[in-house]
């Protein structure tokens, strides 16, 4: 169990770093969504199913959607 | 007895109703916020007479603290809610005429919710609930700063939002740490348990809370957003932001420092920070040519002075600080409201463009002058007794540090006087004919309307009421000092607060 959690946390931090590095904003948003999804799994493992559901629905799905809409209306690449 | 919950529930109800009115009966919208705030003013004045002896504690949901969220209507909180309702009422009357356009329902909903959030912050007795109301206050002010949708407004709103959001996150981390340490969120409960933990481990949560709340309170290193936001919002919103929002932020800071942590060790640091904020604010204000930026920097200076006075932490000092807070709220709201129409008529934000306005709109300019005099601290206006109390309290501590700091504060007051007299000189004694001025490129608040002179009556009424209040409280400070004294007592005696909540 603890190995699974460690791997998930590691992946989550990698995702956060990717969100920082990527110049393509869509890529950054996808990395941030990955962070959200893994966070939702961690919430589930921490015995918080309500929060996991909220994070998956709000944090992952809707946030990603509004980010992508906003990027489509502005510009895609960070200079 | 009025239940203090109604002070929050009634304006919320009005705010929820406004979108319905926007669909079916649009012209009525602009009268709803004054109605809600008039209710709040009456109700909180009624409460004020009751709570001075015994604070009223109401639990929400019907459980005993600390197992529920409870409101603490003590003298301090109710005093604040009176001020919020009063200033909010007058500003919303002003806005009836001032805010034009076809989507005013957004403006009215957001400003009403901003004031509701402020009322919630000052009444709540639960630290996470304070965070939620703080967010209501902050988020509606982000949206309102960008209300005009012009370049300057949107840019300032973005800066404000980013700094405010970082502050909120830090605040939430601080709350999480406190919950981890004490296992409760009730402020009185935390305050009662605070001695069970070593002071070292309290330091980090305290710093996080002060930083998070300090962003909204505009304490020195955290106030980069303020001049932009206050100067690019519509003038009625600037009045609310300068007159209420930062004061409520400061309230939250002192509530955390005094009541929750009972921290006397950090007070001297806060006093230094206050004076630093004061001097920086006044110096920046002195170098401004833009009237609203000048007023915004002057707010920073005043907040510094209030923070300093509260950090003296004697009965006299806290009373003086609260009195100064009241006087700043009234005077600054008046200044922004008066400046709003002066700007509207001249079509420029530059002080040099105001030449000769004293003749064209004498009443508005006279009101501006009174506000400026009061802010500087001249008798017979409210600024005089408040500053006098602070100076007396600082000297009464008989400590060299405070004497030196109050000397610096007086220096700040002199600078303040200098730049306000410059404006007044321009208003009344320069340029017989307003010569055509170059438009400030950043300014497109509204197309100037140079034809008519004086501000409309609906706008003059609140301005007049502010002037009356400033003069009356200046001549008879006794009218408010009793209430201020009991508010100061509530802040200084944390054990009474704990006992009244937890029983």
């Amino acid at each position, binding site marked *: 169990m603890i190995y699974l959690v460690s791997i998930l946390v590691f992946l989550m931090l990698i995702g956060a770093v990717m969100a920082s590095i990527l110049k393509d904003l869509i890529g950054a948003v996808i990395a941030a969504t990955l962070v959200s999804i893994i966070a939702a799994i961690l919430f589930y493992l921490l015995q918080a*199913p*309500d929060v*996991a*559901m*909220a994070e998956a*629905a709000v944090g992952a*799905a*809707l946030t990603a*959607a*509004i980010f992508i*809409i*906003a990027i489509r209306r502005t510009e895609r690449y960070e200079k | 007895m009025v*239940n203090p919950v109604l002070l929050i*529930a009634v304006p*919320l*109800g009005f*705010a*929820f*109703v406004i*979108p*319905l009115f*926007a669909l079916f009966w649009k012209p009525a919208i602009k009268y709803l916020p004054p109605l809600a705030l008039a209710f709040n003013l009456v109700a909180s004045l009624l409460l004020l007479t009751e709570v001075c002896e015994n604070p009223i504690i109401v639990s*929400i*949901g*019907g*459980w005993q603290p*600390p*197992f529920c*969220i409870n409101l603490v209507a003590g003298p301090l909180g109710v005093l604040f809610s009176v001020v919020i309702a009063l200033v909010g009422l007058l500003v919303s009357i002003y806005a009836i005429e001032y805010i034009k356009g*076809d*989507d005013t329902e*957004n403006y009215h*909903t*957001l400003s009403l919710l901003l004031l*509701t959030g402020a009322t*919630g912050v000052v009444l709540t007795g*639960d630290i*996470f*609930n304070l965070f*939620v109301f703080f*967010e*209501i206050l902050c*988020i*509606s002010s982000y*949206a309102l700063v960008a*209300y005009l*949708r012009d370049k300057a407004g*949107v840019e300032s*709103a973005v800066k404000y939002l980013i700094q405010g959001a970082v502050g909120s996150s830090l605040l939430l981390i601080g709350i999480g*740490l406190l*919950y*981890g340490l004490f*296992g*409760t*969120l009730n402020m009185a409960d935390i305050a009662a348990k605070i001695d069970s*933990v070593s002071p070292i*481990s309290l330091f*980090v*949560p305290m*710093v996080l809370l002060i930083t998070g709340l300090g962003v909204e309170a505009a304490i020195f290193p955290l106030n980069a957003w303020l001049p932009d936001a206050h100067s690019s919002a519509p003038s009625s919103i600037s009045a609310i932001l300068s007159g209420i929002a930062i004061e409520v932020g400061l309230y939250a800071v002192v509530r955390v420092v005094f009541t929750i942590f009972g921290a006397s060790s950090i007070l001297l640091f806060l006093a230094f920070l206050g004076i630093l904020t004061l001097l920086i604010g006044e110096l920046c204000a002195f170098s401004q040519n833009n009237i609203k930026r000048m007023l915004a920097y002057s707010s920073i200076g005043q907040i510094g002075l209030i923070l300093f006075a509260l950090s003296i932490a004697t009965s006299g000092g806290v009373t003086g600080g609260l009195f100064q807070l009241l006087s700043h709220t009234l005077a600054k709201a008046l200044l922004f409201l008066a400046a709003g129409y002066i700007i509207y008529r001249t079509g420029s934000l530059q002080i040099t463009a105001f030449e000769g306005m004293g003749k064209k709109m004498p009443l508005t300019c006279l009101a501006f002058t009174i506000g400026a005099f009061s802010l500087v601290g001249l008798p017979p206006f409210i600024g005089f007794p408040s500053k006098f109390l602070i100076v007396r309290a600082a000297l009464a501590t008989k400590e060299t540090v405070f004497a030196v700091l109050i000397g610096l504060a007086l220096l700040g007051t002199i600078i303040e006087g200098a730049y306000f007299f410059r404006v007044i000189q321009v208003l009344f004694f320069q340029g017989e004919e307003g010569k055509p001025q170059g438009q400030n490129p950043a300014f497109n608040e509204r197309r100037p309307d140079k034809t008519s002179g004086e501000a409309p009556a609906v706008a003059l009424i609140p301005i007049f009421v502010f002037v009356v209040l400033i003069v009356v409280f200046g001549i008879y400070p006794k009218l408010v000092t009793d209430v201020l004294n009991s508010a100061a007592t509530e802040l200084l005696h944390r054990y009474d607060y704990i006992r009244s909540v937890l029983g």
Partner: protein
Amino acid sequence: MRKIVSILLLIIVAFGIIRALVEIPFGTLKTEVGRYYIEKGVEETGAVNIVTSVVVNYRAFDTLGEIVVLFIAAIGLGAVLRTGREKKTRDVQPASLILFTGCRFLFPFILILGIYIFIHGHLTPGGGFQGGAIIASGFLLIYLGCKERRISRVASHIAESLGGLVFLGIGLLGLVFGSYFLFNFLPMGTANTLFSAGVIPIIYIAIGFKVGSELAGILDNLIEES
């Protein structure tokens, strides 16, 4: 320069937080308040999901504040993005038949799923926010699939206002019947059945509709305006 200062600042923050965390060991019981809710929650509120009983009953005032925050965001977003001119019809590029049919087919199921989740908030994980968010994602699907369709602005405003007013009204009724704001004045019923827990399901339904319509309104504004 800015990078170095920021990293220094972050190191200070990290140090302080590590210092503070030493006092807060992971995985231990820290609170009496939470314990109280677990011991008494079912008996006092009738909801078997303790998180729901905390969200909608013990700390319902926070929840009221939170839906206000979302309300502000929806209104503020409308105010910021508003163009003032009539909306142009979107350049309708019809979606492929499969996408179109799929979206129309899926939409009612997503709606029902969302409603199921917020009606059963006091029994199973989930509740008003989760259900509302799922409803909003159903509308997102409609935007992707059936491009010519829009949600009615009037209906969403009415749902928003009524959701808020129902919540507030229940709170005020509590004040009338039990002399406490948001007092749970309806009978608790038998725990673990649908019709139990007094006002909790009603509040969650109001929250669900409000959150759903607000999030859908936010999406609508972002896609359509300016």
